[in-house]
């Protein structure tokens, strides 16, 4: 713990091997997390349903967006898993062309139009969730201590303490946590804290039919993800990349990370999120200097007229 403190100068950002221990849990269990491999997501939304069912989350709108098959739209107070659905013109697979029609007559329909290459379209699906950041801004800024770090290294809201100040909402660099309008308090994914305590995996991972959502010890998930992304890249899947896996990133690595097939912003994820607390020492320093300048300005305003008057009298 002290090692980390001295190496980085602060516990506000940077790599952090033991968030639960640093939060004061003596001898915590292994840190757990989600690895969401979007390359096998089929967009069935079983995770959304399982999450709502298990956590008894209220209904939050039954609208049709018209933008895609995604009518959930995004994470929020009453949506703790959200399946993003993207239809786009696909980049070509890099090595190897599509199999040639061997000995068969090629229909003119399938002929390549140079302007619009055939098969030039794909669907991307990704189940988004709270990232359970190593350095969680929501937790840092919570003034009541309602948000806390569990022994599993996850981040959870204590609903009997939250007073609905709403500070965690703009603090989250991923736009995950939100206040429920009729209730006032903030809600988000708990990584099924109750199920973890009973030795069960979270409801979404349990329900996922393709193992796109994998739950387990974070270190193991990171190893598994590294192998998977290597395999995909070797196979020439364009854009395959890990997101949120790196303990060196702006939030110290996510407890829930992803394998994406395009840039993060395409999925509505920030490309380089930073925990706002990283800059908090600088902010307090500037606020202190500003407070001193305010006082100095006031002193000047009172001293100058006195000096001028004395000069005038002479």
């Amino acid at each position, binding site marked *: 713990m002290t090692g980390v403190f001295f190496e980085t100068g602060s516990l506000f950002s940077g790599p952090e091997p033991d968030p639960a221990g640093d939060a004061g849990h003596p001898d915590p269990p292994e840190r757990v997390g989600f690895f969401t491999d979007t390359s096998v997501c089929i967009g069935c939304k079983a995770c959304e349903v399982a999450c709502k069912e298990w956590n008894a989350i209220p209904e939050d709108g039954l609208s049709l967006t018209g933008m895609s098959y995604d009518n959930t739209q995004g994470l929020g107070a009453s949506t703790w898993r959200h399946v993003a659905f993207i239809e786009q013109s696909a980049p070509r697979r890099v090595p190897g062309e599509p199999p040639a029609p061997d000995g068969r007559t090629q229909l003119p329909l399938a002929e390549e139009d140079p302007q619009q290459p055939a098969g030039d379209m794909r669907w991307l699906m990704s189940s988004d969730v709270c990232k359970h950041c190593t350095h969680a801004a929501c937790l840092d800024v919570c*003034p009541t201590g309602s948000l806390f770090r569990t022994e599993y290294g996850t981040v959870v809201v204590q609903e009997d303490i939250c007073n609905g100040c709403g500070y965690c909402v703009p603090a989250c660099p991923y736009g995950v946590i939100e206040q429920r309008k009729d209730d006032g308090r903030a809600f988000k994914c708990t990584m099924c804290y109750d199920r973890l305590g009973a030795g069960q995996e979270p409801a979404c991972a349990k329900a996922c039919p393709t193992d796109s959502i994998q739950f387990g010890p974070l270190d193991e998930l990171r190893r598994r993800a590294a192998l998977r992304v290597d395999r995909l890249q070797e196979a020439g899947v364009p854009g395959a990349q890990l997101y949120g896996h790196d303990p060196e990133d702006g939030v110290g690595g996510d407890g829930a990370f992803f394998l994406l097939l395009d840039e993060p912003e395409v999925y509505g994820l920030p490309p380089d999120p930073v925990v*706002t607390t990283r800059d908090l020492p600088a902010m307090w320093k500037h606020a202190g200097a500003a407070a001193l300048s305010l006082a100095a300005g006031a002193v000047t305003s009172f001293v100058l007229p006195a000096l001028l008057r004395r000069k005038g009298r002479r």
Partner: protein
Amino acid sequence: MTGTPARKSERRRKGEQLMVPRAEFDSYYGRPVIKAPAWEPRDIAGYFFTGGLAGAGSVLAAGAQLTGRRTMAKTLKVSSLAAISLSTAALVHDLGRPDRFLNMLRVCKPTSPMSVGSWLLAGYGPMAGAAAASAVTGWLPRAGAAATGAAALLGPAVATYTAVLAADTAVPAWHGAHRELPYLFAASATAAASGMALVTSPTRENAPARGAALLAAAADKAAMTAAERRLGMVAETYRSGRAGKLLRCAQAITVAGAATAGLLGGRSRPAAVAGGLALLTGSALTRFGVFHAGIASAEDPKYTVEPQRRGKE
């Protein structure tokens, strides 16, 4: 499909002619990446203003008391008490669960500017109250002077911590200006308090308020310019839309108020009052402008994605 996200991955297919010009950035159907605060502008921007007015007012009140400007000292103490009471009410009102406002004092957490602010208010409020009560009733003058001193010491912190409150978020227009916002808020608070002093005190007492007004207007302009320079493309949110309108008005009114009060306020009472009112209005507009710039920057994903992309590449 009309909702197809703007594509950037075209850059992977060099040599091919693009049918549509490449979009500047990608997003998920234009939806915001971060969530804007659900704070009511009247409550929170109003709180930034009243907190500044109270905090800087306490500093000027102490100065007035030390230099024997009795009317100015008394009226500023009263205005500080009124402003801090209003701001506390606004803060409680903005809670999703106002009945749980005491949970703010459940922990003391330096990583949470809101926790720090709650404790600051808990310390400052009673001092401002005691100072005002003693000034109005004339009772316990020594205790009143001590409370005036304590309020003056805490006042600058009350006026500037709100900048950290806004900046310690993922909101691009606030976080990106985290170095400059405290100075802007200090200047704006001083403008408001000097405006209040100009409105409420006689011309023979208002020389320091005139000086403070001129200093504040200059500092306000300098801090805003520095913030915009730092913000780069995100500075658009300070120049366009509702925030742009508010901030342009704020700037004009603040300059006009400081000039009127500074040049004519020493001789003409109506000029001092007019200048003071303009300064108060300018300060309030500045806070609402900064607030709305933040909201605009949170609602458009490009202000989140583009600076992060640029930082990464």
